[in-house]
């Protein structure tokens, strides 16, 4: 039984995750409290990505409920969400507009420079390296100022400094009362991590 708390950021109860009309997980429960970091583990094909897509509302749940309690969230999936013809800055600005937020230009520039992308500001994303595109996608986490972060394999193609940055960002996000759900093979190794193994449940 999951503990229901009035300050819970995200509450999932009785969710059925299905792929191609075949249930992968049944009666899945999860609650994300402020400051929580939940790592979802499991072998390839166990439904990590699909589960995150349900949580982000990209797929609609047919059975069970997902309650975000109108908290804002940021989803960084395996696809970057960035258009190759637009510059890093334009993409980031669009992502904030898309989430109904008015982030100022100086704020967006600060986020880009924090990720070492200041010089790429006016370069089309198509001309950036895979790691830089990844950094740019993760920059949306800071730009969006969301309470809940949903990250799908965030460590893919990141170098060591970017991984350190991400760990720091998640830690300060948790300290400010946010929650994060991360689907990953390699553990982030942060303290007080709750792990859900999809193969066991």
């Amino acid at each position, binding site marked *: 039984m999951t503990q229901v708390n009035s300050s819970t950021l995200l509450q999932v109860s009785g969710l059925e995750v299905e*792929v*191609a009309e075949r249930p992968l997980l049944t009666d899945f429960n999860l609650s994300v409290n402020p400051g929580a970091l939940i790592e979802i583990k499991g072998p390839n094909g166990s439904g990590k990505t699909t589960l995150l*897509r349900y949580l*982000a*509302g*990209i*797929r*609609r749940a047919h059975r069970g409920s997902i309650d975000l309690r109108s908290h804002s*969230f940021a*989803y960084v*999936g*395996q*696809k*970057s*969400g*960035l*258009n*190759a*013809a*637009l510059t890093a800055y*334009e993409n980031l600005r*669009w*992502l904030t*507009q*898309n*989430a*109904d937020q*008015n982030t100022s230009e100086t704020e967006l520039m600060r986020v880009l420079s924090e990720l070492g992308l200041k010089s790429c500001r006016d370069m*089309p994303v198509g001309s950036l390296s895979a790691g830089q595109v990844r950094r740019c996608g993760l920059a949306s986490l800071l730009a969006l100022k969301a309470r809940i972060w949903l990250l799908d394999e965030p460590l893919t193609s990141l170098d060591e400094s970017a991984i350190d940055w991400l760990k720091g960002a998640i830690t300060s996000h948790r300290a400010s009362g946010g929650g994060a759900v991360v689907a990953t093979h390699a553990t982030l190794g942060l303290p007080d991590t709750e792990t859900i193994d999809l193969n066991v449940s």
Partner: protein
Amino acid sequence: MNAFVIAFNRTFRIGWRHPLDSLNPMAFFIIVTSLISITFEGGSLATGDGLAIAVLWVVLLLSTMMASGGAYAQDYEDGSLEQVIAQNQSLYVSVHGSVAARWFLCAVPIVALVPLGAWMLNIDTEVWWILFITLIPGSIVFTLFGVLGATLTLGVGRNGVLLALLVLPLYVPVLLLGVGACQRSANQEPFEFALIGILAIAMGAITFLPFAIAALLRVSQEY
């Protein structure tokens, strides 16, 4: 900011950076109309304005279909479509913005070339105004159906033939009404019925097709 403005700005900006997506259908339009005018050896089309009008409409139809075939394919590939759906923006309004930008980028330049095409095909200048009046709503409907077909084949990958098979039958009523209005006007017959018909179809398409497109975009994320 409004979902319409956000989608319009984004689609327009991306389209502006890919000028060939607009220029190719324009080139296609000019090439086909000029080849037809050469093969008819000037003047022989003049006796039958009806045929020239039909040719012009069909060429415009094919060029707009060519232009809207890639709608949303990029957004689907790079994941920006899932960001739109995840953040729960009004997809209906967003589709409107995106289609409007696409119409400005791809259909308006072709409609602007119509005088050139009409001149090459020897269409009487008195018919030009009715050509414009019918081609503007006509091109809106063509663009909407083209985007509908493109979203239907989103998961399938690039499939031009399938797209043509799916949407061509939908184009036919507008094509018949449009050509009919122009031909009747050229023959000094009453054409108001056909004109009202094409405007009605355009209004209906603008109102209802974005619902269908939005629903298809959601379905495309379900597998």
